[in-house]
C-alpha cells in the first residue's frame, strides 16, 4: 500500500491534460513507442475530434523512483466538462492528490478554479503544474503569479513541463511519489469500494471501475451494490494497464475493475459503494447521489419508418451510458419519438453524435428545455420539462425555473459586451473583480434556460474566443414562465412549442418566425408564420406565394427532365413534415433547434 499513489489530472479545457496523460503512460513503458497513439486514453472518435475527454479511463502506471523504489501510480482520468461534474467529483473522491494543470500561455481559467475547488472539497494534495512552457507565448512568471493569487497555492511548489515535448515528465512522477500521500485503509475491514465509473463490454456485461477504500475483493465472492441492494458474483478483478489485467484480489488503496455478471451499466450507479454480501460494510461511503438530468429534448427519427431502429439504438446506447434517461414521446408534426434527459448540452450533443455516427441514425431533436416547477392553485406541485405538458395558465399559482451561479473569465476589453450578454439573459447578483491585470472575472446568477440557449456561442463570439465559464447549481427561483406556440397557417406545430420567460417571449418568437421564413421554401399558397402566447399573436412572418412558376418550353428531352424533377420532389416530400396544408422540410426543424450548441 505504501507503494500506491492515486491521483488525477485536472485542468481547464485544452490546457493539455490528455497530452500529459499520454506522456505519463509512455514514460511508464506501458506501450511500445511505435504503437503509441497520441492521447491514447481518448478512445472515442468524438473525444479525439473535439479534443475533450468524455469517458474517464483509469490506468495503473508502474514507476520506479530515483531511489529505486517501485510504485503503482493510478492515474484516474476525469471528464473535463461541467456536464459531468458528478463523475468528476467521484473520481476525485477516489484519489489522494491531483496534478492541477495550468497552461503557461493562457493562465488560470474558469475551470481551473472550478476544478480546484472540487479538489479542495476532497482534501486532496495539490501539485500545480505549469504546462506548455514550450510555447513562444508562455509566460511562466505570470502563471505563477496567478497560481498564487487566484488559487492561493505556493507558486514555488509548481512544476514546469511541456507535455507535448515531454520535458518535465520525470519531475512530475517524482513529485507524485513524494508529495501525494499513500492511500489509507485496512484490508481486513469489511469491503467498501467506491464506483466512480462503469463501461459496457458486450461479452462480459458491465465493467465496474472502483477505488477500494477498505477490505478486499476476490473472484468467486458475492458483492452487493449498496444503493439498490443488488448482489452479484465476482467473475474477475484486476487493474488497468491500458488493457484489463486480472489479479487475484483488489484490496484497500487500489484502483481497478470488477466484473461480476452485471448486465448493463444502468444496473450500476456512479458513487455507489460495493461491499461483500458475506461481510457488509456498516455504512456506504459518503457522497452518493442519484444523478439528475438537467436538460431535456425530444428525439425523433427523420423518417418515421425508422422509429424501431431508433428505439433499438437508444437501448444499445444506454448500455454504456447510465445517465441518459428517456421515455416514449410523440408529436403531431414529427411522429413517434422519445423524450430524453441529459446532464447538459454537451451530453446532449454527444448522444446525438454517437447515435448518428456509431448507430447510423438520422434524427431530429427538439429545442432543449430545462425542468420547470409549478405550484397550482389547488396546491399540487408539478415539474414540467416538456412544453406539451405545460399546465393551464389559469391554474398556475407560482412558477419557478432553475438558476445557476456562473463564473466567467475574460479579458478586460470585452467586459462591456459580456456584461450586456448576462443582463440580456436576466442575470442577477452581477459582480465582477480583477483577478489579474487585464483579466476580469464576472459572477452572476443566470437562469439555466438562458445558459443553454446560445450562451456558450455568444460568449465565445463577443470575447473572440477568450471567454470561458463554469457554473454550479443554484436552485429554483420564481419566474414568469409562459408557453410559446408556433403556428404555420394557423396550425400549431407542436414540436416547435417551448416554455420561455415572458420577458424573452417576444424576441424568441421573432427569431423563430424569421428562422422558419428562411427555412420553409415558397409554395403555391402564402404561408403565415406566427408566434403566440395562448391566443395572443406576438410575432409573425410571411412567406409569399409563388406568382409564377412555369418552364417556357416543354419538348422532346424536356419531358424526361421535368419528370425526373418531379421524381426528386416526390422523394423530397416524403421527408417533409406536413402541418395542415404546409409541407415543412426537416431543415426547418433542425436549424431552429440547433441554435443551442454548447
Amino acid at each position: 500500500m505504501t507503494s500506491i499513489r492515486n491521483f488525477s489530472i485536472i485542468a481547464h479545457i485544452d490546457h493539455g491534460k490528455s497530452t500529459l496523460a499520454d506522456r505519463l503512460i509512455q514514460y511508464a513503458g506501458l506501450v511500445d513507442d511505435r504503437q503509441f497513439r497520441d492521447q491514447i486514453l481518448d478512445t472515442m472518435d468524438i473525444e479525439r475530434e473535439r479534443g475533450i475527454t468524455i469517458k474517464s479511463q483509469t490506468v495503473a502506471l508502474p514507476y520506479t523512483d530515483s531511489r529505486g523504489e517501485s510504485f503503482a501510480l493510478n492515474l484516474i482520468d476525469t471528464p473535463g466538462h461541467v456536464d459531468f461534474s458528478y463523475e468528476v467529483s467521484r473520481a476525485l473522491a477516489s484519489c489522494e492528490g491531483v496534478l492541477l494543470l495550468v497552461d503557461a500561455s493562457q493562465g488560470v481559467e474558469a475551470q481551473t478554479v472550478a476544478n480546484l475547488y472540487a479538489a479542495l472539497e476532497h482534501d486532496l494534495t495539490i501539485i500545480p503544474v505549469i504546462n506548455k512552457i514550450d510555447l513562444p507565448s508562455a509566460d511562466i512568471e505570470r502563471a505563477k503569479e496567478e497560481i498564487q493569487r487566484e488559487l492561493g497555492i505556493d507558486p514555488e511548489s509548481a512544476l514546469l513541463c511541456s507535455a507535448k515535448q515531454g520535458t518535465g515528465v520525470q519531475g512530475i512522477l517524482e513529485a507524485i511519489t513524494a508529495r501525494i500521500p499513500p492511500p489509507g485503509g485496512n484490508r481486513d475491514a469489511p469491503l467498501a469500494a467506491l464506483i466512480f465509473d462503469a463501461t459496457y463490454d458486450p461479452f462480459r456485461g458491465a465493467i465496474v471501475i472502483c477505488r477500494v477504500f477498505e477490505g478486499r475483493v476476490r473472484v468467486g465472492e458475492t458483492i452487493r451494490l449498496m444503493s439498490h441492494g443488488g448482489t452479484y458474483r465476482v467473475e474477475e478483478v484486476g487493474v488497468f494497464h491500458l488493457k484489463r489485467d486480472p489479479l487475484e484480489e483488489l484490496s484497500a488503496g487500489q484502483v481497478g475493475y470488477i466484473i461480476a455478471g452485471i448486465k448493463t451499466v444502468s444496473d450500476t450507479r456512479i458513487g455507489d459503494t460495493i461491499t461483500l454480501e458475506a461481510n457488509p460494510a456498516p455504512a456506504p461511503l459518503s457522497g452518493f447521489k442519484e444523478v439528475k438530468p438537467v436538460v431535456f429534448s425530444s428525439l425523433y427519427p427523420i423518417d418515421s419508418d425508422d422509429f424501431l431502429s431508433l428505439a433499438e439504438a437508444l437501448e444499445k446506447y444506454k448500455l454504456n451510458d447510465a445517465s441518459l434517461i428517456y421515455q416514449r414521446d410523440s408529436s403531431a408534426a414529427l411522429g413517434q419519438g422519445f423524450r430524453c434527459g441529459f446532464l447538459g448540452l454537451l451530453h446532449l450533443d454527444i448522444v446525438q453524435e454517437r447515435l448518428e455516427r456509431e448507430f447510423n441514425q438520422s434524427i431530429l431533436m427538439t429545442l432543449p428545455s430545462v425542468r420547470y416547477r409549478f405550484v397550482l392553485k389547488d396546491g399540487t406541485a408539478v415539474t414540467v420539462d416538456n412544453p406539451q405538458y405545460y399546465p393551464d395558465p389559469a391554474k398556475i399559482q407560482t412558477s419557478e425555473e432553475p438558476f445557476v451561479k456562473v463564473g466567467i473569465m475574460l479579458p478586460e476589453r470585452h467586459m462591456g459586451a459580456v456584461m450586456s450578454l448576462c443582463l440580456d439573459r436576466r442575470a442577477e447578483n452581477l459582480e465582477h473583480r480583477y483577478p489579474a491585470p487585464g483579466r476580469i472575472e464576472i459572477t452572476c446568477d443566470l437562469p439555466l434556460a438562458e445558459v443553454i440557449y446560445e450562451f456558450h456561442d455568444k460568449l465565445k463570439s463577443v470575447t473572440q474566443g477568450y471567454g470561458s465559464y463554469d457554473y454550479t447549481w443554484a436552485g429554483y427561483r420564481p419566474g414568469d414562465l409562459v408557453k410559446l406556440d408556433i403556428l404555420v397557417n394557423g396550425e400549431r406545430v407542436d414540436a416547435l412549442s417551448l416554455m420561455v420567460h415572458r420577458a424573452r417571449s417576444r424576441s424568441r418568437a421573432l427569431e423563430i418566425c424569421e428562422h422558419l421564413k428562411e427555412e420553409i421554401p415558397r409554395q403555391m399558397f402564402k404561408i403565415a408564420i406566427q408566434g403566440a402566447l395562448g391566443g395572443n399573436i406576438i410575432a409573425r412572418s410571411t412567406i409569399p406565394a409563388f406568382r409564377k412558376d412555369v418552364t417556357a418550353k416543354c419538348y422532346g428531352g424536356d419531358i424526361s427532365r421535368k419528370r425526373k424533377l418531379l421524381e426528386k420532389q416526390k422523394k423530397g416530400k416524403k421527408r417533409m413534415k406536413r402541418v395542415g396544408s404546409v409541407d415543412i422540410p426537416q431543415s426547418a426543424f433542425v436549424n431552429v433547434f440547433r441554435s443551442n450548441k454548447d
Partner: protein
Amino acid sequence: MNEQLTAPIGEVPRPGPEAGLYVHVPFCRSKCPYCDFFSVPSAALVPDWIRALEKEARMVASGFGLFDTLYLGGGTPTVLEDGPLRRVMDCLCRLPLTATPEITVEANPNDATPARLKLLAELGANRLSLGVQSLQDAELRLLGRTHTAGDALRAMAAIRSGGHWNLGVDLLFALPGQTEREWVETLTAVLEFAPEHVSCYQLTVKEDTPMGEAVKSGRLVLPGEEVQRGLLCTASRFLEAHGYVHYEVSNYARRTDLARRGPTRRHAGPEPPIACESPGREPPVFDRDFAVCRHNLKYWDRSPYLGLGPSAHSFLGKRRWWNLRTVRGYCQALDAGEPPVEGEELLTPEQEHLEKLGLAWRTAAGIPRHELADNPATEAALARLVSRGCVRRVGNRYVPTLEGYLLADQIPLLFL
C-alpha cells in the same frame, strides 16, 4: 386572378395513332448567346451529316408506322444550301407519311427569301416557324440575332404574299430591360400579318452560355417574377382578344374561321361558347378549328415521335431515347452501322403517371379525373386549386386557367 382561357376543352379527341418526326439540323451561322440547343457554326460537316441522317432514317423509322407530322428544327435548318436541303427533304418524304401531313421548317428571317420559300414549298413544306424573337432592334442586338426588325417584317410580308403558308411566329419575352409597351408593340406588329400560330417563350438563360455568364456576373439583369408574370399575362390577354387561343403555356393558335389575309383584322364580338356548354355542338378538335401545331401537341399528349440527328429525342410506347450530341459522334456511330443512341429509359407506370401530371397543366386539355388518384387527398388538392382559380372542372376533366399556366410547375406538387 382567375382568368379562364377560351381554349377548346371538353373531350379532346386524341390525335390519331400516327407519330411525329423531328429532324435536328445541327448547324447555325452563329450561336446566339442564350441558346443551349446543340449546333455548330460551320457547314463543313453538312455532307457527312446528311449521309448519316439517311442511314439513321433507314435504320430506325420502321418501328413507328405512319408519320403525320414532320418538323425540321435545330440549329437553323434554312442554313442548308438548296442541294442539301433537297436531299434531306427527299429522304424524309420517302418515309411513310399520312395523306395530309403537317410539314414544318424552322426558318430565320434572313433565310426567308422568295426563292427559298418557293423551294421549301416545292419540297413539300406547308408550315413555317419563323424565329422573329423580337421586333425591337435593340433587343435583337442584345439577343445576338443576325437580323433586324426590318428584316423580320420583310420576311413575314414575303411569306404572306407568295404561296399558302401556315405561318408560326416565335417571340421571346422577359428580356433584360423589356417593358410592357415594347412587348405590346412587337405583338401588335406581328399580328399585322395574321400568323396562324404565335409562340411567346420566356427567355430562359442557361448557365453555361455567354448570356448565362453575363447574368451571373451581374452585367445583365433579367426581369423578376412580377414582371415576367405581367408580360405573360399581357401576351395572353392581347392575343386572346385578337382571336387567338392560348392553348399551351407558350403557344397560341388562331381561329381558322377568321380571315387569314389583310392587316389589322381583329376578332370582334363575344367569345365563342365553350364546347360543353352548348350541347349538340360537336366538341372542337384542335387542328380543325384552331391552327395549332400538330407536331408539338404530340409531345404534350405523349404520342409517339422519332427524333433524327444529333441530340434528338424519341418516344415510343414506354421507351424514351436520345441521340449522341456531337455531329462527329453521330456520324461515326452510323458509319459503324450502329444506332447513334446515347441513352434510353424504360418508363414504369409510376413514371408515366408523373409525366402526365407534369404536362397536364401546360395545355388547355388539362387532365381527365381518372388519371389522378382516387382518394380524399386528391379531391382536397383539386378543391384548393379550383378555389384558388388555377384550375376549373369541365365535364370529367380538370383544365388550367391562365393562373394555372402561370403556376404549372407548382400544381403537380399538390398531387405528389
